[in-house]
């Protein structure tokens, strides 16, 4: 492992695998998750959801529900409409129903809410709310939806005359077409990245406590972005922002699921406001899977223009996304399809052109960045699957094809055909290192021998480049709020410190790693720093944790604020040492006069002096806050190699090995980084092998609970072999790039390429995810294998 430490273990700065601070409460069952919160007089809410995908609502009868012992109220769309809250804006400029008034547009849509004294009574009441539905045909694919004469899903939306949600294109079409026209070879792949769901083990929930006397709204909520949510609540509900306090407690995983504002939050808040008591709503798992933020659902056709030698000349993509009933992509770019145009991947070629359309269907809205930055997973999957296709079509080894096309280390900063400026990287070294670890040559020899015996072995490669850390204010915002982030550092007289963050952990270990950044920059031991996050009354503004932005943006803010503090401390040290500030140097744990290391004071001495003994003209205290606007995204990358064995009789495939090399720049806490990679690889494996949400022709969701929406257990999950290279980000204060999502982005293509590689000699070029055994068997069978 690369050693990047500069501090001793007692300080525990960057590069130390410091044990996590948050563990102490979690291993004793003392975490404070949303459902653990109980307030005096708290009521419970259950949602009534549409059982059908598309229907007109002719009436709602709540008499029977109201008669249930313990039921206090039934909230319907009509009541919400009376308070102008039946609809709310989405994060993509559309509107979304809070409780349906006119039609239901997907199975699971929120229709009414029952408020009761206990969850059992609320469930009894919800069972008895009688909704009169007039059935309409359901549109379940974007292709159907955009076909001539398709029924209008968004008939309430002014100016909407078809089911098109958006169109977007980017790149140089003319140059791309010209390159294709003159290419030796054109390789194409049409594939679907299926609908998936982040489904953290804790579902979403809220405890809304609106005090009708003071107007104070205290809202406990499973939120990955509490500050942004506070502002959105203020804008949507018209509450004064100073009276809204959002507290995001311990979060049982987020993965993008807890970024949007869901109808349940709004209804519970409204109910608390109307009834004057706290209201708790905790989603059921089915509610979570069928109505909240799905990810993916992109139909993509990608093409590469190549020379006979396999040099890529240009890329062309036509993409259609299934948005569900409301366009509510949780993405803060000004591009309609997020960062999909990073689809040129790790390769050096001049031209690309991308055309995207999104369509409304009778499915749940969402489009969250499920453990990735806004559509990068789809983009990365497409290019890496195309590389496999090109290798198979051209008869070039897939590793060799990548090596021939990589952006070379000396080309950084490198501007891609679609305008990203990659900051740094050494792709050939990464791939070669991963191949060596896997024993690539021997594996190829074994594969050939296995084929002779009728066995199928596949070796899959993916080399991805991610773009994370949204992001520079010029391009990235949510509802106009720029994607900056913040950190506030307060050093107390005894030298102990509190760090307050705009971002919010969901298991990534911020309470540990962010303290390490401060330790690195100030010399205050990490164990002396308490990290506070998630309470909007107590932390500076931030846009939240998703898209791997905590470290690139919040981490940078932390480093910058710590530098301000260290600088002030240096001035104080100069005063204490009676030297000029320019002559003071900082080592890991001391300030000393240049050239005479014995003349030193500690950061703790300086902290005490900040409140007791200051140089003339300096303000008391040792506190500061920084808002960081990153100059660019960061671009983590990695090389993954997967080996699979495929059973030709049944199509069942098993992962024999998974070698994953990640370069995420400087690793703040290697132990935590590796944990993030393990988790990401597992979700990549899940999506490639079993985890998807599909629908029948009537729009019934298949995948509405954990019996149908499959999350791998320890038994199926492969063992992972991790490797690293370290190429620091040149523009990030500590050279870190973000790691939470790389593995989810990069690994699906590696798994799928491995299965394809096992059967490519039979002529198979594509199997859509999830690569179910029947799909493998059918592919082999129809290839005549």
């Amino acid at each position, binding site marked *: 492992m690369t050693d990047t430490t500069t501090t001793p273990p007692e300080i525990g700065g960057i590069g130390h695998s410091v044990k996590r601070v948050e563990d102490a409460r979690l291993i004793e069952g003392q975490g404070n998750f949303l459902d653990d919160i109980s307030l005096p007089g708290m009521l419970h809410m259950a949602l009534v959801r549409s059982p059908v995908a598309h229907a007109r609502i002719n009436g709602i009868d709540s008499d029977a529900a109201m008669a249930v012992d313990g039921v206090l109220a039934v909230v319907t769309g009509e009541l919400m409409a009376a308070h102008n809250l039946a609809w709310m804006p989405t994060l993509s400029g559309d509107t979304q129903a809070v409780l349906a008034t006119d039609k239901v547009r997907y199975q699971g849509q929120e229709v009414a809410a029952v408020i009761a004294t206990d969850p059992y009574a609320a469930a009894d009441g919800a069972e008895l709310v009688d909704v009169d539905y007039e059935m309409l045909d359901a549109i379940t694919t974007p292709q159907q939806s955009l076909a001539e004469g398709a029924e209008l899903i968004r008939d309430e939306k002014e100016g909407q005359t078809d089911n098109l949600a958006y169109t977007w294109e980017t790149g140089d079409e003319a140059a791309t077409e010209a390159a294709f026209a003159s290419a030796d070879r054109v390789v194409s792949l049409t594939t679907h990245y299926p609908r998936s769901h982040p489904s953290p083990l804790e579902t979403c929930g809220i405890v809304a406590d609106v005090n009708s006397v003071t107007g104070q709204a205290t809202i406990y909520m499973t939120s990955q972005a509490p500050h942004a949510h506070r502002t959105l609540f203020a804008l949507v509900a018209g509450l004064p922002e100073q009276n809204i306090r959002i507290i995001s407690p311990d979060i049982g995983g987020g993965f993008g699921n807890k970024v949007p504002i869901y109808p349940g939050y709004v209804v519970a808040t409204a109910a608390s406001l109307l009834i004057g008591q706290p209201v708790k709503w905790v989603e059921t798992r089915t509610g979570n899977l069928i109505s909240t933020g799905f990810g993916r659902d992109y139909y993509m056709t990608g093409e590469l223009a190549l020379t006979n030698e396999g040099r890529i000349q240009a890329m062309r993509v036509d993409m259609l996304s299934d948005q569900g009933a409301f366009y509510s992509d949780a993405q803060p770019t000004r591009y309609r399809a997020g960062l999909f145009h990073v689809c040129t991947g790790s390769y050096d070629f001049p031209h690309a052109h991308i055309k995207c359309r999104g369509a409304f269907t009778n499915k749940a809205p969402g489009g969250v960045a499920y453990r990735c930055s806004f559509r990068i997973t789809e983009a990365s999957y497409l290019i890496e699957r195309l590389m496999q296709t090109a290798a198979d079509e051209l008869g070039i080894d897939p590793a060799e094809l990548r090596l021939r096309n990589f952006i070379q280390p000396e080309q950084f900063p490198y501007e891609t055909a679609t305008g990203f400026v990659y900051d740094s990287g050494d792709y050939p070294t990464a791939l070669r290192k991963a191949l060596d670890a896997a024993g690539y040559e021997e594996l190829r020899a074994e594969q050939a021998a296995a084929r002779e015996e009728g066995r199928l072995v596949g070796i899959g490669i993916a080399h991805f480049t991610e773009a994370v850390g949204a992001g520079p204010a010029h391009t990235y915002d949510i509802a106009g709020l720029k994607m900056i982030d913040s950190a506030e550092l307060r050093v107390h007289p005894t030298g102990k410190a509190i760090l307050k963050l705009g971002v919010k952990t969901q298991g990534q270990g911020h309470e540990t790693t962010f303290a390490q950044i401060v330790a690195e920059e100030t010399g205050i031991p990490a164990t002396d720093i308490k990290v506070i996050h998630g309470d909007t009354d107590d932390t500076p503004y931030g846009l939240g944790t998703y898209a791997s932005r905590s470290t690139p943006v919040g981490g940078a803010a932390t480093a910058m604020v710590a530098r301000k503090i260290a600088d002030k401390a240096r001035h104080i040290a100069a005063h204490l040492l009676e030297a000029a500030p320019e002559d003071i140097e900082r080592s890991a744990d001391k300030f000393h006069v240049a050239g005479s290391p014995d003349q030193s004071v500690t950061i703790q001495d300086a902290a005490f002096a900040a409140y007791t003994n200051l140089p003339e003209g300096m303000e008391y205290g040792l506190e500061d806050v920084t808002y960081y606007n990153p100059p660019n995204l960061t671009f983590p990358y990695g090389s993954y190699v997967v080996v699979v064995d495929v059973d030709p009789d049944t199509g069942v495939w098993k992962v024999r090995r998974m070698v994953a090399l990640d370069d995420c720049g400087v690793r703040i806490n290697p132990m935590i980084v590796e944990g993030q990679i393990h988790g990401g690889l597992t979700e990549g494996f899940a999506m490639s092998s079993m985890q998807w949400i599909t629908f029948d022709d009537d729009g019934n969701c298949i995948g509405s609970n954990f019996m149908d929406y*499959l*999350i*791998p257990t320890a038994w199926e999950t492969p063992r992972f072999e991790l490797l690293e290279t370290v190429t620091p980000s040149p523009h990030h204060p500590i050279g870190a790039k973000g790691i939470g999502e790389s593995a989810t982005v990069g690994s699906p293509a590696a798994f799928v390429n491995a299965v394809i590689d096992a059967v490519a000699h039979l002529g198979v070029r594509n199997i859509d995810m999830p690569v179910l055994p029947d799909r493998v068997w059918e592919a082999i069978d129809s290839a005549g294998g």
Partner: protein
Amino acid sequence: MLPARFDYVAASSVEEAIAAKAEGGDEARILAGGQSLLPMMKLRFATPSKLVDINRIAGLDAIRSHNGHLHVGALVRHADIAASGAVSGAVASAAPWIADPLVRNLGTMCGSVAHCDPEGDWNSVLLATGAEVVAQGPSGRRTIDIGDFVQDFFTNSLAEDEMVVALHIPVPSGRSGGSYQKLERKVGDYATVGVATHLELADDGTISAAGVAMTSVAPINRKATDAEALLVGNAPSAELFAEAGEAAAAAADPRDDVRGSARWKRRVVAAFTQRALAAAAEQAQS
């Protein structure tokens, strides 16, 4: 996802349980491991008016070999079977693949058999081995052939005032073997395809009795009788098992669904039948 209200009786004897159940009529249910019933009640797919909990009845947890059969009491959990030294063949082979380790700690074999879920594994094992269900009612006990017990999906042939007290699974005295092959998408998943086999060998090494039954590929667990007939009287061989596999595939009646196409499931039946027969023969021969 919380159950509706019901009355609850914790019976302390089989007689008490039967009486309490009879009193409740067709709205009353026996509660054994609860690993099928409670999930259905939480989803409100089932709303019984009364639960008769049999978990406190002494003596129902026995698992032992007796008179040429394995006796499995109504409170024997899947995990007990997996851990028991008394089981062999298809029973031993299937036990670890039922549900997941935690569900196996509560769910019972008898409950599973009574439940008659076509995706349940045990009924295939019982069909292949030719087991009997021991039912008790107010007038005493009777044994029911498993083929007659399983009436339809989620329907057994018990009377309202009867419960299952045990299963009797034949344990042949001569050379025999059995196996269960299951394709599940992950641990805790019901079978996409399951095949149970049971073989007995005569002194000359030919197959004297054969059982083949399938899970999840027909409206109820189904015996592959043609395959069985093919096997009996012949010496075990790869060719014979392949032929039997084709016969089983022909007897299956799978559906296209999210787990896969019917065409593919038939191929899996063929492959699994072949493999499960090979495993059974190997056991019998060793």
